């Protein structure tokens, strides 16, 4: 039994991990783009992005996931996500990427605005171009500022992958839960918890390492 539970949980973990990795892959750059939009001089763009962030942060991720997965099928008459596991994971990644990009954008904006104006001006008077100032001067200072709040969000993302169960994606929590439902076992639920703890534990070590690496300057 222990072996088959482990097997099932590993299957679930793979799905959770896919959701996690692809969400990060899309939401990080998207978040940065949104952050630049939020500080743009163009008022209409700023307004649009602020509205988007308000809607996405103001409604439950689970609700967004349900709308994105079932909405297109009901509006268009055919499901754009294939009914397979891959389709469910894709829909989850889309919903999560939009959601997390909005949270990340706010963190990135804080990082950008947190770098003193004097840093940019010091670069300007030294004849640096805008991109040199961004890449050589402000970027690393920004990264240093956003690592602690980002680690919070990213750890939350690990556990949010369990929401994919609502559209029947066979992720980690779903895998543990199914043993309770069919066999009346509760220990797989705790065992599932151990998987999450290990996942988050590794991430925590990684973030600690990054913070230490950036510790050489203030």
């Amino acid at each position: 039994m222990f072996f088959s539970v482990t097997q099932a949980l590993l299957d679930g973990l793979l799905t959770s991990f896919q959701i996690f990795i692809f969400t990060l892959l899309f939401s990080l750059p998207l978040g940065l783009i949104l952050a630049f939009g939020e500080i743009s001089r163009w008022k209409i763009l700023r307004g649009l992005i602020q509205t988007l962030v308000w809607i996405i942060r103001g409604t439950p991720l689970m609700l967004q996931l349900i709308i994105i997965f079932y909405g297109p099928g009901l509006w268009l008459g055919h499901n754009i996500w294939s009914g397979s596991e891959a389709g469910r994971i894709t829909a989850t990644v889309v919903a999560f990427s939009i959601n997390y990009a909005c949270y990340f954008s706010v963190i990135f904006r804080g990082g950008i605005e947190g770098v003193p104006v004097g840093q940019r001006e010091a670069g300007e008077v030294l004849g640096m171009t805008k991109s040199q100032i961004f890449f050589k001067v402000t970027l690393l200072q920004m990264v240093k500022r956003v690592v602690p709040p980002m680690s919070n969000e990213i750890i939350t993302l690990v556990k949010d992958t369990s929401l994919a169960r609502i559209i029947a994606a066979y992720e980690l929590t779903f895998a543990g839960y199914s043993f309770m439902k069919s066999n009346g076992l509760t220990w797989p639920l705790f065992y599932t918890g151990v998987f999450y703890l290990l996942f988050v534990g590794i991430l925590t070590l990684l973030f600690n390492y990054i913070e230490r690496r950036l510790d050489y300057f203030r």
Partner: protein
Amino acid sequence: MAVLEVKNIGKHFGSTRVLDDVSFDLEEGNALAIIGSSGSGKTTLLRCLNFLEMPDHGSITVRGETLFDADNPVKGQERDLRTKRLHFGMVFQAFHLFPQYTALENVTLAEKLLAKEQPDFKQKRKQIFEEIEAHGKALLEQMGLAERMDHYPHQLSGGQQQRVAIARALALKPDILCFDEPTSALDPELTGEVLKVIRGLASQRTTMIIVTHEMAFARDVADQIIFMDDGVIVEQGDPRQVIDHPREERTRQFLTKY
């Protein structure tokens, strides 16, 4: 011929007039001190010279080349800013060193980035970088920081940081070096070491503009002095004459506070 000619500079922030009809010349090798109370427009004037602010009126000419003329705008004026800025060096009140770079890297960064634009950079990369490093080290030694080259800004005292900032500004060999209240962010005991460095530069006939509240220093070091109040030049001339025997009532009132 004057190395710098500033004519009729005017600047508004919204409806607030910050600079009005500011004109002065600076001769090669001379030091100009600008004094005046906070909010008199001294810092804005320096920021206009470094194109951190754009003047609304007037012109700025360096060695006969008009860098900026508000009444006669040249196409692409904004785009050429980068090269125009290089005529001026700027030392900020709050240093603004790059925290993630060592003292030496702070000094050499801009020069290395500029070197990449040279046509023969790829072939001579190593040699060019060695020269830049040597130049940076020499500057830091001149600032009395030979032992501190590999320190990061947060490991340095305020006075040391400001001296690194001076070396950084000198690295690009500007025609005119500008100081914006270089000692105002320092404890009194650290002020001296920075003033000493600036004094040394003056004795080497570095062309400088120094916005300062250190009257005795301005009187000693400067060849020319400008007193500003409310965005206009109230009085300018020989520092001893202006500080010891001001002609204008406003100058006198200001100086009694010191």
